[in-house]
């Protein structure tokens, strides 16, 4: 059975990979969740990022704050609408960004309340579009980090949450995971999910698979395949992302100790 995966990328990131219970990957760090699905012997592994699009909000707010000092700041929506243009004017895989912008640190695939965001590899030629691209690519790397803690990469990623509306982010995620991405048009996924259980329980469907064929499959958009030119670029970026996050752990400890010493 191909590994079915779903990511909800909104303020936070939730990454889920459905497997039979004998195929669960128990990572050495002892992180994540395993949640039983309403199908016999099927479970989903879950890893979560503390902050996802909150990182984009942070980067945009840097520019918004500065612009408001010298004139009238654009609306957040105006800034978001520029992201695709900035992506077109910047180069993929040039910078490493760790999206640990939350003051609570990170919780997937590793748990460290002192982890913090970082931008590695800057030179004098980099401009705001390069930073925005790095942040968005950082979300792709964080998703890959989470899926890597749950076994093989999924063969198809279903994407929900606010970020699913961004063509740029879908493209980054597809290449970062080297998997096609499909967006679901289901608005109320939580309510629909439990209602599907009721539909099976009252006999409207004989099996959950039959229910899924009516309730879920027709609402999936067509798969958006990964860009083959981007895949090797993001393979290399991920190697550097992991090296940098291992190397930065003592720095996070040191910064936390410094905050503590300064009474913050």
């Amino acid at each position, binding site marked *: 059975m191909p590994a079915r995966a779903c990511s909800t990328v909104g303020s936070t990131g939730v990454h889920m990979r459905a497997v039979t219970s004998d195929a669960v990957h128990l990572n050495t760090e002892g992180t994540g969740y*395993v949640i*039983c699905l309403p199908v016999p012997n099927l479970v989903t592994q879950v890893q979560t990022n503390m902050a996802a699009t909150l990182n984009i909000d942070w980067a945009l707010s840097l520019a918004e704050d500065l612009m408001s000092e010298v004139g009238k700041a654009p609306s957040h929506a105006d800034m978001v609408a520029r992201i695709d243009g900035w992506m077109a004017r910047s180069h993929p895989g040039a910078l490493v960004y760790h999206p640990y912008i939350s003051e609570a640190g990170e919780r997937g695939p590793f748990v460290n309340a002192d982890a913090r965001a970082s931008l590695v590899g800057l030179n004098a030629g980099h401009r705001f579009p390069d930073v925005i691209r790095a942040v968005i690519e950082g979300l792709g790397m964080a998703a890959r980090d989470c899926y890597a803690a749950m076994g093989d990469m999924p063969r198809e990623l279903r994407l929900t949450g606010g970020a699913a509306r961004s063509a740029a982010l879908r493209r980054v995620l597809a290449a970062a995971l080297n998997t096609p991405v499909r967006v679901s048009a289901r*608005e109320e996924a939580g309510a629909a*999910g*439990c*209602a599907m259980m*009721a539909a099976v*329980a009252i006999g409207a469907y004989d099996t959950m698979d039959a229910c899924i064929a009516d309730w879920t499959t027709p609402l999936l958009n067509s798969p958006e395949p990964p860009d083959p030119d981007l895949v090797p670029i993001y393979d290399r970026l991920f190697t550097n992302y992991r090296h940098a996050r291992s190397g930065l752990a003592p720095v996070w400890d040191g910064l936390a100790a410094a905050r503590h010493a300064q009474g913050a």
Partner: protein
Amino acid sequence: MANSSDLIIGVDAGTSVIKAVAFDLAGRQIAAASVRNSYVMGADGSATQSLPQTWSDCAAALRGLGDKITGLARRTAAVALTGQGDGTWLAGADNAAVTDAWLWLDARAAPTVRRLAAGPDERARFEATGTGLNTCQQGSQLAHMDATCPEILDRAEVALHCKDWLFLNLTGTRATDPSEASFTFGDFRTRAYSDRVIAALGLTHRRHLLPDIIDGAQDTRPLTAAAAAQTGLRAARRCRLAMSIW
């Protein structure tokens, strides 16, 4: 077909909003109603929510859905529940709240998580549940209450999750579902409680607080008359308990 039971209501009780959504039996969304929910953050890291208010908000969302769909009570074949995951919702005598719920956002159990995570049984607990220990979880929170405010647990008769609390109010049944039961206190392979996991959390002497596990894809309970009156739905309708998502 409008005079037969042709709708399923899904209730999604999130941390800050409770939604009631009606679907037809083929999965098309018909209408939705929502009520803002509120929680309180304390300087001690607490994040709490009122149990009776959450039930009242849930009932209001269902009544709100009834305002949007003519004949909703007659047309409803089932009600299904999901809600914010983790957290601790304690009920005592007569199914009354013991104290405000500790939400998944509550950080008070951090010292207990550190203690348990360093314990000799932690890896075995992880390999049974598949789930890393953290402050969000009911297991950590019950262990922390047991260490710091055991009188709360002494007054409790059952430890529920959010959706379980709503299920209790809708059906009068104290129960949880296989997903939260397994990742907190059990084994995802058997979908049952694990003595070893409960012992690793130091909660063997509190095991009586854990409710029966009901699989919402197979088992149903009828709505009570009191709940029917509060929600505007009809009694004896089947009410589903579903897995939780956060």
